[in-house]
């Protein structure tokens, strides 16, 4: 649970650092317009070439003493010169002049007001310029008075935070792309998460690129369109990621619904770029919360944390920072995704460790087959007897035993071995057992495909069982017959033991041997196998079916 606390603390830290930011951007100049609306509109002339002139009377009411020189921010389209009380303070682009086309200015510009002129009282801002492009946008002119230093510093402060976030997401994107490229599993979630991080990085950069690149006003809407597109992509990818991570059932239906609603939002709010982006994020949040709540309901690890993160981002977006709340909200969402991802990584690591453990346990089990007392000591006792009674046969016995040990040694670390090697192992084992039990064991095989592989010692295990559960025949041999068939989507080994079965008191003999077989099959084929072992009229029948990957 301490991790959740850490997560919360981290998010709170993010908030507090942003809280300070609002203090910085507080205005240090109070002023009022002499117009009724905030924005001056309908000033453009009839012809595109016509020069416009806008006069905005301003009353400077109060200024901080130590605020430095006064600055003027102008938001507007076109190319224009700006005058403060009739004194030229700067220009933005170049107006149309006879024979020369307009050089487009940028949307936001800053001007320094001469020290002597920035006194309290009435002033007149005059803007003279032309606007040949995007006249239909009917965008007004907006002004803001502020200390010149602050006008320049506040974007820097905003960007310091945003670039910090952007950098983090860029690194995360690169890391997750590398992870995807170099991982053997090629998990979609890793790729999707990498893409989300990259898109989010792009979104932050594009959103704030206006502060350090002078975008001509003619391209003003291009940036907003890119932002809209990025938000659209993110709004699809984030819920998709949650669906993948939480193994959500109705993926297609919900993705389709989300996609349609995003399209509807785009169409109905065409032209209102900020509003579209906000609605996109609402849709994304809603779908994500549904998915995460569903996951919480299904008690999937991390579900509750994602729900908490999403709700936090809703709150932040709605009540705390209106202007860039969207980005904070996105960051929280991505953070909760990152957290989710680490949970998943941990689960994968644990599963990997467990499988390693299982593999080494199976290796051990395989080696133990030949050194467990029941096998080794009984074999040695028989061996002593053979050596004492007929040394020559004893030597043959020792050879067979040495060969069985050799094969066991050779295969002990493999998870799959050639079928021929397995058959050799079985035949050697039968040879050893025939010395011990003084029973004749026959081996037959049908249709063996030499190129096939099989987990080590599983047929060997079936044979061990067969030897234990068969009565020694009055005359003749106990026969083991292995046959192989390959069908369209599976292959099958059948081992038939032809002998009379012993009567067992209890149905308990299927113990460790069968556990070993299923563990080995699991290790190599996952769930794509079927094992069956039952009594038949002639003796015993065991089948192993291995399906092609489903």
């Amino acid at each position: 649970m301490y991790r959740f606390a850490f997560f919360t603390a981290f998010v709170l830290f993010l908030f507090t650092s942003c809280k300070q930011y609002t203090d910085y951007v507080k205005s240090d100049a109070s002023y009022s317009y002499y117009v009724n609306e905030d924005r001056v509109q309908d000033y453009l002339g009839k012809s595109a070439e016509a020069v416009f002139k806008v006069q905005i009377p301003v009353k400077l009411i109060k200024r901080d003493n130590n605020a430095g020189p006064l600055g003027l921010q102008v938001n507007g389209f076109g190319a224009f010169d700006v005058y403060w009380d009739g004194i030229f303070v700067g220009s933005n682009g170049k107006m149309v002049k006879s024979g020369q086309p307009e050089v487009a200015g940028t949307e936001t510009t800053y001007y320094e007001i001469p020290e002597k002129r920035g006194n309290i009282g009435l002033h007149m801002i005059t803007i003279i310029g032309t606007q040949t492009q995007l006249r239909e946008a009917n965008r007004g002119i907006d002004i803001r008075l502020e200390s010149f230093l602050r006008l320049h510093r506040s974007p820097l402060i905003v960007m310091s935070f945003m670039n910090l976030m952007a950098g983090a997401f860029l690194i995360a994107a690169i890391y997750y792309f590398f992870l995807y490229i170099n991982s053997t599993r090629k998990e979609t979630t890793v790729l999707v998460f990498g893409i989300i991080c990259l898109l989010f990085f792009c979104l932050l950069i594009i959103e704030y690129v206006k502060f350090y690149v002078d975008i001509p006003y003619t391209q003003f809407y291009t940036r907003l369109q890119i932002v809209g597109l990025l938000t659209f992509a993110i709004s699809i990818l984030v819920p998709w990621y949650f669906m993948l991570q939480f193994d959500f059932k109705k993926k297609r239906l919900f993705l389709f619904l989300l996609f349609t609603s995003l399209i509807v939002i785009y169409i109905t709010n065409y032209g209102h770029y900020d509003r579209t982006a906000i609605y996109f994020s609402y849709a994304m949040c809603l779908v994500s919360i549904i998915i995460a709540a569903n996951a919480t309901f299904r008690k999937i690890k991390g579900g509750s944390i994602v729900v908490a993160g999403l709700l936090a981002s809703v709150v932040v977006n709605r009540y705390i920072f209106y202007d860039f709340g969207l980005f904070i909200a996105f960051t929280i969402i991505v953070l909760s995704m990152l957290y989710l991802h680490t949970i998943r990584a941990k689960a994968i690591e644990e599963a990997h460790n467990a499988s390693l453990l299982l593999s080494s346990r199976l290796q051990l089990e395989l080696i133990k087959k030949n050194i467990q007392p029941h096998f080794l000591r009984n074999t040695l006792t028989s061996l002593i007897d053979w050596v004492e009674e007929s040394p020559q046969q004893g030597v043959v016995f020792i050879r067979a035993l040495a060969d069985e040990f050799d094969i066991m040694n050779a295969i002990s670390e493999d998870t799959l071995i050639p079928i021929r090697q397995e058959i050799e192992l079985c035949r050697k084992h039968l040879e050893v057992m025939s010395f011990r039990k003084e029973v004749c064991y026959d081996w037959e095989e049908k249709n063996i495909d030499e190129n096939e592989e099989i987990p080590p010692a599983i047929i060997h295990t079936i044979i061990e069982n067969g030897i234990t559960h068969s009565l020694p025949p009055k005359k003749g041999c106990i026969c083991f017959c292995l046959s192989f068939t390959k069908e369209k989507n599976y292959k099958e080994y059948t081992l038939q033991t032809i002998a009379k079965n012993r009567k067992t008191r209890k149905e308990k003999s299927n113990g460790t041997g069968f556990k070993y077989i299923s563990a080995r099959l699991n290790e190599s084929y996952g769930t794509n196998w079927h094992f069956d072992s039952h009594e038949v009229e002639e003796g015993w029948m065991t089948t192993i079916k291995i399906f092609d990957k489903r």
Partner: protein
Amino acid sequence: MKILIIEDEARIAKRIERMTRDFFDKETGILLCDSVENGLSIIDRNSIDLLLLDLNLNGEDGFDVLQNVVARSFQTIIISAYTDKAITAFGYGVLDFVGKPFDENRLTQAFRRFTSPEKQPNGDLQFLAVKKGKTIRLVPIKDIRYIKGAGIYTELHLSDNRIELHDKSLESLEKLLPSTFERIHKSFIVCWNEADKLIVEPGGKYSMLLKNAELLPVGRSKYKEIRHKMI
């Protein structure tokens, strides 16, 4: 005399049979059997004197079989690959435990234990398995006050005054019991810790007074030895 060998490895069974035949005289009947199930039914049908049993003591029912056989009148020698289970097997009251692989000397040693009348305590006996109808009960050795011979049975007199019947003869039990038990009479074995004093009655009759005030007879031939031990 009848000896039963339960061993599922043909070669080893033959080896045991050969060595048994070499040790005992010609009249000894040797029965061979390759599974515990068949072996138990042979035991029910024949009265045997010695069982040589290969028991997979790692299996879950190994000890069920063990309890079942040690409760009978015959002595049991285990011949097993699971040498680490020897102590447990002794705890249940087997005469000897021969680990595989074994040679003739080791098996002969086990047979000597069976044939020699002397007590050869191994000190590990923990329980005596008592058959009651179809079930087997384990009686802890420390609960036994004394054992009284009663024909082909023996009576185990326990510290809570209960009496249990055991199938083994007093002679057989004497071989199994730890050194804290002493044969004081042809029909009595007493636990040394329960003995209080030795009483000489008029007419040359000797008795032993137990701590619970019971009086047991002491054999004339045993008297000297016991008096020596008590002092």
